[in-house]
């Protein structure tokens, strides 16, 4: 990884001395003086607080929404809301045809089945641009994919297939980071052989009769790949999180989870019955404050100490493209004696010089992370998840995890796909294909992000993350962008409210090692055209480091004790 010449190191604001001062986190590298503090207001040359913890520059930025764009976005939503009320009125008085589900005439006096207002957004906003999602594909989703063409004559309430297939669409939406989503090659041949030998279904759980020798081989391989003592694999990535967190923590424990954690982590945390406190996204001051308060005040009302404190973070956050500040989290964890659960769903295989994920990217010791969780869905082209850690932990999980007791284990051809792809990444199959893929991905990421920034788009996230969110903001542009890109043979994923905050709708590109430079250049040319057409180039090249991001100090949460 070459560093950008002339780029400044970790951009973080200068903090006053009475803020967060703790022996292990701060170091002697802080250069705070009146002159620098005054000059910092004028220029963006910020001094890092914890620089010695990072062995490489950590460039992350989230440019602020321009005020005019925010105002126009609200006006857009306002107009859509007014039109929504108008259309609802017309539908109610039968002037306009009603396409959605309604109750039967005979049941009008019963308690209503549907709450009409809750579907307001779905009926009036989502339906209009529904053709950008759930597009059926009919080939393997590699670097290029075939999409079935469909038309709608009643404004997206129903679709008809024309019978054409749009061929060779450049695929910028699949989580295919290392390019293993293929139907030819060594992985496919190995999986086909195992399919003949073992069949497809396992038909049992791990604890009964579903523990194949392939699973044991896979687990040894995963443990050696991550650098931990032992590992355990599960059939579904979502279920790995939601079924194992309840086995690890329970009532009387505290979970500190990041604001933007994935639904599986949130569900696992809620199912466990522990108390959940949320800290601001990637904000170490917020996390430290919560840790301090937890240890000083203990449990609410009884003031007893917490049984366990577990910090839940992800390696790469797939909606923002940001990377967790792992060195600082580990320093905090050691100081306050908490446990760390790291979910590397998107970062395993995609980050780091040898592809071992975010721990490798920062050059840290995998023993510092208590529970390393990840999925095989993204970089390995398979399905399922794993948890790695100390041998006692994994032995405990083998008996107590809900997945191990009730869920079916991984299917043998899938296991073989993971084994082959993992060996390829580690270089154990005798070729340098793995190393080339990792390097190709890193180069693609750097190139793509640099070109998009130079064109003037607002891009969120870290310089090295293969997830690239491009900000669209206005609701009409969400639909327009998706459709225009498909017309130009590029498939993208767009997201809007309420999946993102109201003014931050975006298009999300996922880069892959399978994308060649020509494909990226074609894509960039088309994005440039569409950007000019839709006036998407909002950037004023003034990025705000995450800690300065204007978040409300006084945000309120649901309290549910």
């Amino acid at each position, binding site marked *: 990884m070459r560093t950008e010449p002339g780029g400044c190191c970790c951009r973080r604001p200068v903090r006053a001395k009475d803020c967060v001062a703790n022996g292990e986190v701060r170091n002697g590298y802080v250069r705070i003086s009146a002159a620098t503090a005054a000059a910092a207001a004028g220029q963006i040359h910020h001094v890092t607080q914890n620089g010695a913890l990072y062995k490489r520059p950590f460039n992350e930025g989230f440019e602020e929404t321009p005020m005019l764009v925010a105002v126009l976005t609200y006006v857009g939503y306002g107009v859509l809301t007014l039109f929504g009320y108008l259309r609802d009125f017309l539908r109610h008085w039968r002037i306009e045809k009603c396409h959605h589900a309604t109750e039967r005439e005979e049941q009008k006096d019963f308690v209503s089945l549907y*709450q009409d*207002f809750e579907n307001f957004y779905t009926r009036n906003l989502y339906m209009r641009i529904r053709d950008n999602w759930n597009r059926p594909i009919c080939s393997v989703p590699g670097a290029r994919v075939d999409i079935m063409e469909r038309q709608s004559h009643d404004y997206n309430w129903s679709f008809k297939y024309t019978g054409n297939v749009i061929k060779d669409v450049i695929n910028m939406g699949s989580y295919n980071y290392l390019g293993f989503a293929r139907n030819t090659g060594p992985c496919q041949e190995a999986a086909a052989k195992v399919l003949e030998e073992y069949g497809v279904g396992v038909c049992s759980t791990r604890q009964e009769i579903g523990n194949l020798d392939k699973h044991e081989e896979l687990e040894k391989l995963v443990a050696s790949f991550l650098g931990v003592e032992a590992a355990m694999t599960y059939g579904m990535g979502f279920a790995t999180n939601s079924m194992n967190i309840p086995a690890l923590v329970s009532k009387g424990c505290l979970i500190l989870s990041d604001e*933007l954690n994935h639904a599986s982590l949130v569900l696992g945390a809620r199912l466990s019955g522990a108390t959940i406190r949320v800290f601001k996204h990637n904000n170490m001051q917020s996390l430290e404050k919560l840790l301090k308060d937890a240890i000083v005040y203990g449990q609410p009302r009884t003031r007893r100490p917490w049984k366990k404190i577990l910090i839940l973070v992800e390696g790469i956050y797939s909606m923002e493209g940001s990377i967790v500040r792992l060195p600082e989290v580990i320093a905090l964890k050691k100081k306050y004696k908490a446990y760390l659960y790291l979910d590397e769903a998107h970062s395993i295989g995609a980050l780091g010089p040898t592809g071992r994920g975010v721990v490798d990217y920062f050059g840290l010791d995998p023993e510092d992370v208590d529970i390393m969780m990840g999925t095989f869905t993204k970089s390995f082209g398979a399905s399922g998840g794993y948890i790695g850690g100390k041998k006692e932990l994994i032995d405990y999980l083998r008996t107590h995890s809900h997945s191990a007791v009730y869920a079916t284990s991984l299917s043998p051809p899938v296991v073989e796909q993971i084994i082959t792809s993992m060996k390829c990444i580690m270089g154990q199959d005798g070729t340098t294909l793995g190393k080339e893929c990792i390097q190709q991905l890193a180069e693609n990421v750097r190139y793509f992000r640099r070109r998009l920034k130079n064109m003037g788009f607002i891009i969120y996230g870290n310089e090295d993350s293969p997830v690239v969110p491009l900000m669209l903001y206005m609701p009409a542009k969400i639909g327009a962008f998706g459709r225009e890109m498909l017309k130009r043979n590029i498939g993208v994923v767009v997201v809007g409210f309420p999946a993102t905050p*109201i003014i931050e709708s975006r298009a999300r590109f996922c880069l892959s090692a399978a994308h060649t430079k020509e494909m990226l250049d074609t894509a960039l040319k088309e994005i440039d055209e569409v950007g000019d057409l839709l006036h998407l180039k909002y950037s004023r090249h003034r990025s705000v480091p995450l800690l300065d991001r204007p978040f409300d100090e006084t945000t309120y949460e*649901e309290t549910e004790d």
Partner: protein
Amino acid sequence: VNVGVAHSEVNPNTRVMNSRGMWMTYALGVGLLHIVLLSIPVAWTLTNGIHNLGMYVFLPAVKGTPFETPDQGKARLLTHWAQLDYGVQFTSSRKFFTISPIILYFLASFYTKYDPTHFFLNTAALLSVLIPKMPQLHGVRIFGINKC
């Protein structure tokens, strides 16, 4: 639970009024409404009246959320005003939206030269919008208005 969503915020309706630019959009909207109405003689009272009518409908009258939330409808019987910031009183958004009709009221009274009829109408409009926002009336339904 929060399926397909990028954050762990259960009800996005609570944070909408705090977002960047919302207050400015609101102020601009009221200003635009006034300019459009300036052609009619009773402009200020009309602005005040229409603004308060709109505010009454959207904040303390409409209940629930326009999208499905993963908290199984805890907010279905709550008005948008009650949902703001999860029911915490005296936050900055609540203060802003309480003060803005008062400012409009002052301006309307001044520009109509304290004429009795206008005064009566303006005061009635102001009270209809201010009273539902008071913290003592959080969750209260008088005369059965807006119940269920």
